[in-house]
């Protein structure tokens, strides 16, 4: 899976993107060593991100989607978290082998991240202008006065009304959508090459969500940055992303363009997710949920981690040799042009 270049955009997408490869995550493993045992949060995740590309990482809670992003940002709580293997290369340099201070110098202006909960991600005792300006003071050595000036410019850029007056306001004086804009302003302050958005709109109402997603898209068009969008919302993925990687139990189980994956899933988990959500366009029949609960990451099922919940699993004599769902781990493999899935029977799921 290493060195897999990004999948070409299908003609239906029509979303222009080519460019230099920014980020390569290669067989990343993260585990949490707790007193009650080892929790395997990320088990061999690989992906790449190019300039102007929007990659969505889709998964439910506990799928490892946020942990892998935190590993890239170097903000894992360790201990208990330990990166046990793999590499993270930003513009060709492996971040994990660097000294910590060097990592900071690379990440500071290069990669930034926004979080779900804007209120708890901002410091309540500093004005937003001070917090946005901190980026310039810490990484560029800008003076306090100039930093505040830049903060006003950034607040204008993320379309916070009356930025010059509001620069001295505190986070609690802003609404949820505006706080998220403040965070975006901080994140884009140093013109990063990569922006990681971890559930950026989950706490927001739909009308505000649409505003924030539009803003992110527009900023991406202006700056050409790569965007990693971590979410559990299939609708947001469809509206915003070019490519999608579906995660389950710390692994990528399916990957491809959004158009391909959402039109015809190649992994039973993706297929199950699609059938689980009600449509807004029409009143459908009964929902077809995935049975059971997401796995416990301290005791991930053997073989394919999805097999206990899978409607298409083949066990024992039913299975093809070497493709027993409960014992043989399915590798993430090319199942159709530009499509990868980690299922022994993807061809059946796809119906090809």
């Amino acid at each position: 899976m290493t060195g897999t270049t990004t999948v070409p955009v299908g003609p239906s997408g029509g979303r222009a993107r080519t460019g230099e490869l920014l980020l390569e995550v290669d067989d990343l493993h993260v585990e949490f060593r707790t007193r009650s045992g080892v929790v395997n949060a990320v088990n061999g995740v690989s992906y790449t991100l190019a300039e102007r590309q929007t990659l969505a990482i889709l998964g439910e809670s506990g799928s490892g989607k946020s942990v892998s992003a935190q590993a890239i940002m170097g903000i894992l709580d360790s201990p208990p978290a330990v990166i046990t293997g793999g590499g993270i290369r930003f513009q060709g340099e492996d971040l994990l082998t660097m000294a910590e201070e060097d990592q900071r110098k690379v990440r500071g202006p290069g990669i930034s991240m926004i979080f779900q909960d804007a209120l708890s991600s901002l410091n309540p005792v500093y004005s937003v202008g001070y917090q946005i300006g901190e980026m310039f003071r810490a990484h560029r050595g800008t003076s306090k006065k100039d930093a505040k000036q830049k903060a006003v410019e950034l607040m204008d850029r993320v379309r916070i009304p009356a930025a010059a007056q509001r620069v001295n306001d505190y986070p609690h004086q802003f609404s949820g959508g505006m706080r998220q804009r403040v965070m975006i302003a901080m994140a884009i302050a140093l013109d990063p090459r990569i922006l990681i958005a971890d559930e950026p709109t989950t706490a927001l109402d739909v009308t505000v969500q649409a505003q924030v997603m539009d803003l992110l898209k527009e900023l991406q068009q202006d700056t050409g940055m790569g965007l990693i969008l971590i979410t559990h919302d299939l609708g947001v993925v469809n509206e915003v992303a070019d490519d999608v990687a579906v995660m389950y139990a710390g692994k990528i189980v399916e990957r491809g363009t959004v158009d391909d994956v959402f039109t015809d899933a190649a992994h039973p988990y993706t297929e199950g997710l699609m059938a689980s959500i009600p449509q807004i366009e029409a009143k459908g029949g009964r929902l077809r949920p995935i049975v059971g609960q997401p796995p416990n990451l301290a005791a991930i099922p053997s073989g394919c981690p999805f097999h206990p919940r899978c409607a298409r699993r083949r066990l024992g004599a039913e299975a093809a040799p070497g493709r027993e769902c409960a014992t043989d781990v399915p590798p993430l493999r090319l199942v159709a042009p530009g499509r990868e899935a980690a299922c022994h029977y993807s061809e059946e799921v796809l119906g090809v």
Partner: protein
Amino acid sequence: MSEPSTGATAASAEPAASAGSTASQAAAGGASTRGALGETLLEVKGLKKHFPLTRGVVLKRTVGHVRAVDGVDLTLRRGETVGLVGESGCGKSTVSKLLVALEKPTDGSIVYKGRDVTKLSKRGLKGYRREVQIIFQDPYASLNPRMTVGDIVAEGWSVHADIAPRKGRLQRTQELLERVGLNPDYVNRYPHQFSGGQRQRIGIARALALQPEIIVCDEPVSALDVSVQAQVVNLLEDLQDDFGLSYLFIAHDLSVVRHISDRVAVMYLGSVVETGTDAEVYGAPSHPYTQALLSSVPLHEPKLRGQRDRILLSGDVPSPANPPSGCRFRTRCWKAQDICAEEPPALVDRGQGHPAACHFAEARPAVVEGR
């Protein structure tokens, strides 16, 4: 009646199915004594709840009111699901608290089976609270961590002892757990031993234990993962069919509300702006706010992407402590004219087929229909 299974640890589907019928007979109790489907159970008229804003610690002066709910009309018929949608802060959760009599309304009436709940005596309220149960949003905060699952489900019977004779309570509890798709052997476990979806099932079993007529579901699936959310939605639908329940389903997820509801009411800043059947509200939204709301929902089919006109609302919801004059939505509305600031629009049908509170209501297909 399918897939109420909860993974490797829980009961398989078949015993749950067979036990379901016995539990349904037991729990529905006097199903035969119930009225006909479609009869009006609950009628809410002009419901208001204003929370005082105070200043000062010792001498509290009231300096204003937050008009959380400001004139809501709703009707709930037997066996029906009414969806209440709106964004955060629109007052939908306050409505749910008023309906289960956890808050006293400032004004307006809640008429349940012909009697005004706001004027009920203590004893009358006790009976009302048994018949109108609630399921909360957060399955982590709404279950007492120091009580076993069995005690949580059976707690209501200590107040309403007539429903379950003391002797058969354990068995009844187990039947209820089985009915909501949990392993009946788990009665002695504690809430922390369950996942979010399973906890929500415990909350549902607790509501069912008192054989309610109405269950107010306050965001019952918003805290759950997509795959588990569908299981709980299906369970709620099955229980409705089996027990003849009526739901008031409060949520901000427009797709889920459409899926489960027979009729839908859209709230904005304390009042209902549009109401109708799901097909009317979603197929021909006629209030500008509903149109904007529906056009903002991200669609999850690639072929529908970019197929509709997005209405991007500017600005934020005004503060309910100081709402705009006239129409509440006029500050963000592209249709607003002078009359909107002067006269609050009534929630009536202006020729678009269903009631909408807009002077310039006009049906407009906001979402791509069909496929």
